[in-house]
């Protein structure tokens, strides 16, 4: 049963990720990316990370993709949408490097995963808000505060970049 759910999620994720880079229209790419992110959230939930799955749906598939959709809708797209497809030398080299990189990565992971030990047994509340917050607010307190400052800087930067006319 779990195998079945995993294969559905995996096929959904890989197919929609492929659709992101193959679609001609950017709008369709954005919609496929939402499906891919939801499939990843599904796999987080199956890997006993329920809090991460919820955050993935809210933050990624919710907030970030709304930003993308907003920008795609806002730009006047008719002129720029039709991409001239011109596979030059650089394009072929890029594709070659990327495919080679993917093959190498798959090979290395295949080699390494035959060496790894069995799956650990987990406590029942593994990955819940309580256990994650316990680690986050004791051991990683300083990075959490710095992340807050980073968010503040981003808010100021975005307001400065796209907002106020003098």
């Amino acid at each position: 049963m779990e195998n079945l759910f995993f294969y559905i999620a995996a096929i959904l994720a890989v197919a929609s990720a492929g659709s992101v880079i193959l679609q001609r229209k950017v709008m369709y790419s954005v919609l496929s990316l939402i499906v891919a992110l939801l499939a990843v959230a599904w796999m987080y939930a199956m890997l006993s990370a329920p809090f991460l799955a919820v955050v993935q749906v809210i933050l990624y598939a919710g907030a970030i993709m709304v930003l993308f959709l907003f920008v795609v809708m806002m730009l006047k797209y008719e002129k720029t949408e039709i991409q001239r497809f011109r596979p030059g030398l650089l394009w072929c080299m890029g594709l070659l490097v990327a495919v080679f990189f993917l093959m190498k990565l798959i090979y290395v992971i295949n080699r390494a995963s035959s060496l790894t030990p069995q799956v650990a047994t987990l406590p029942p509340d593994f990955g819940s808000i309580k256990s994650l917050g316990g680690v986050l607010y004791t051991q990683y307190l300083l990075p959490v505060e710095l992340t807050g400052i980073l968010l503040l800087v981003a808010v100021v930067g975005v307001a400065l970049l796209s907002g106020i006319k003098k």
Partner: protein
Amino acid sequence: MLATDQYLMVGVVLFGIGVIGFLTRRNVIVLLMCIELMINGAGLAFVSFCRQTGSLEGQVFVLFAMVIAAVEIAVALSIVLLVFRNRATLDVDEMEVLKW
């Protein structure tokens, strides 16, 4: 129980698709989406290693990565808006002011 290797492999494939798209597409919004795909592939690898070793550090890292991705996308999209307003293009080949 399913082995975590398969989740790891899905993460690797997502990352690879992101790299392929990043090196072959020319639309700047699609490039940003490929970066998102790569971040998600890495996150999936983190969480599957986490499941395998039974430690929570990987999930914490994925949480930070999500925040960084949100910040990055907000700033990058406002830059894209500015460039589109000034140059009326989304093609990275035509954004060449800083190139030479």
